[in-house]
């Protein structure tokens, strides 16, 4: 097990080196940060050359990459922002909490709905509730995240506010001035739901089919033959087996949650990392974009590793020796 994890980590490091170079190079291709300054008549050619020398921009790309990755590895320093006159680390640090809050609450919301509902649907297969669930799942799948976000804003933040005369949910941002926990939840709810809908649809279908696979298993007949109640048969013997594939999926889906967060945060102006990524790409704040893309790559690899480890913990048959 330990040997497997070490092997996997070594392999991940190679992948991340390749990914970091690709990220750095592609972002470099998208533009020259000094180009804008060159168009400004008040900035002299000497100033531009001095800046280029300071930031190493007159060097070939692989040398720039070398400096960048060296600073990250040795000092944990993601460089400077060209646009905000401050270091990338502090810009990102300010945005981590909103994203963790949004993704974390979305994941909990998703699992709290999808797992019980998937299990219920499997046990009551083809019942009315199961059929309604199937229909809603397909609607959820088919709904583009940005569109869903806009619709929810319109219905729950605009129409509902007009109708009630009191604001329940907010369209954008994370908090009002001087607002407390309730205010935070009023801001959080709509983006959380938006981010969750696709995952709820995915997880419900997934949990339903995992449970259906297990329900025909012979060991459930053995469990009944022992004299166990249906409740114990389902919630102990069946559920434990049906959760194995789901736990793996949770780790793997964290990655798609990041992608969803980029769109959701932008639609709701949620001050998180996803919004920052789009913002930095628009503004040509290249070091911020690079840092965010690299963090995403690291998380992807990390969650894959976690999926493997989680799998071996929940399923005693899996060993990586």
């Amino acid at each position: 097990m330990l040997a497997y994890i070490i092997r996997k980590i070594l392999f991940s490091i190679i992948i991340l080196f390749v990914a970091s170079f690709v990220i750095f190079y592609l972002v470099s291709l998208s533009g020259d940060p000094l180009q804008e300054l060159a168009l400004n008549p008040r900035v002299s050619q000497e100033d531009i050359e001095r800046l280029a020398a300071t930031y190493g921009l007159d060097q070939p790309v692989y040398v720039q990459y070398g400096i960048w990755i060296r600073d990250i590895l040795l000092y944990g320093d993601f460089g400077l922002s060209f646009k905000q006159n401050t270091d990338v680390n502090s810009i990102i640090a300010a945005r981590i909490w909103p994203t963790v809050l949004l993704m974390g609450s979305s994941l909990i919301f998703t699992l709290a709905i999808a797992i019980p509902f998937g299990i219920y649907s499997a046990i009551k297969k083809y019942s009315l509730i199961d059929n309604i669930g199937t229909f809603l799942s397909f609607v959820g799948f088919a709904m583009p995240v940005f569109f869903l976000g806009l619709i929810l804003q319109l219905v729950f933040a605009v129409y509902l506010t007009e109708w009630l005369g009191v604001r329940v949910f907010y369209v954008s941002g994370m908090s009002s001035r001087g607002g407390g926990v309730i205010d935070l939840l009023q801001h959080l709810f709509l983006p959380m739901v938006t981010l969750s809908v696709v995952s709820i649809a995915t997880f419900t279908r997934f949990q339903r089919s995992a449970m259906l696979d297990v329900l025909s298993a012979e060991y459930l007949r053995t469990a009944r033959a022992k004299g166990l109640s249906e409740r114990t048969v389902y919630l102990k013997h069946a559920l434990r087996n049906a959760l194995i594939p789901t736990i793996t999926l949770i780790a793997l889906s964290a990655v798609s949650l990041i992608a969803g967060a980029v769109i959701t945060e932008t639609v709701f102006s949620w001050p998180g990392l996803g919004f920052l990524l789009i913002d930095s790409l628009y503004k040509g704040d290249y070091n911020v974009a690079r840092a965010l893309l690299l963090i995403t790559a690291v998380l992807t690899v990390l969650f894959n590793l976690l999926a493997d480890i989680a799998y071996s913990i929940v399923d005693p048959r899996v060993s990586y020796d």
Partner: protein
Amino acid sequence: MALLEVRDLKTHFRTPDGIVKAVDGVSFTLEAGETLGIVGESGSGKSVTALSIMRLNPQPPCYYPQGEILFEGRNLLEAGERELRDIRGNDIAMIFQDPMTSLNPVFTVGDQIMEAVRIHQKVSKKEAKDIAIQALRDVGIPNPERRVDEYPHQYSGGMRQRAMIAMALACNPKILIADEPTTALDVTIQAQILELMVELQEKYGTAIIMITHDLGVVAQLADKIMVMYGGRAVETGTTDDVFYDPLMPYTWSLLRSIPRLDKAGEVRLLPIRGQPPSLIFLPPGCNFNPRCPFAKDKCREVDPPLEEKRPGHRAACILSLQEIEESKHRVDEELGVEQ
């Protein structure tokens, strides 16, 4: 009063194609400590009969239009879920065909045995574990103190079936129903498992219902035999009666279809032609008549009841004892069997 008495049991299933009469009027009795062998081919209704006793057929689509299953005088077909749960695993335990899939892969073998013990007996976790270890030792699992904490996938096929038997016997049931317990195992392990069952039966006095399509298994184990065909009992009697003097042409054909070591190369085997009957559309007359080597015209008209042909030996055949003996003789001559 017999320990278990099944009277005219019917177990039917509603399916989109029609009603499947999986068991259609089966009766038998089982005394304490006795072994009954139920023999038949796939789809003859033997497993459904066993699951009916445990009331483990899924309802719906299964329903019981008729019959009684009397366990110590209580009719299990009228028992409530609570009462059934008290009986399952405690008074009547069951082991299944495939030990590879019959144990839950995510719980240790010990947990699964302890679970059976703890729902029926008021014992602490510690005591339950001791019972589990003792049960594993009883069924010949080496080093049970360590093995008790292992998962099913760490056991071999034969050991898993031993573990299943340990789980079934941990509560000291009065009846053990074994549904093809050796079918999924290789031959040497089969013999060990059967020996183990005989040994434990002698030790604990458990009555056994042994369900199998393997005639060798019942010959070795059973006191009496019920042969099933198309959802009905077609022959019942002591093991000696059924093996040495089969009266239902189906039983006789089955025995003639098995190669005999002592007559190898001298005698032709008798194949049973055709397919088992559809349990939705049974043939007119006797269920077996389309495949029967003895069939006469009257067999297509009359559905024969299970009747006593000789004392304690019943068969469902419309032919008279004399006609049966003559037919056996005639077919044997064709096959080259010496009388």
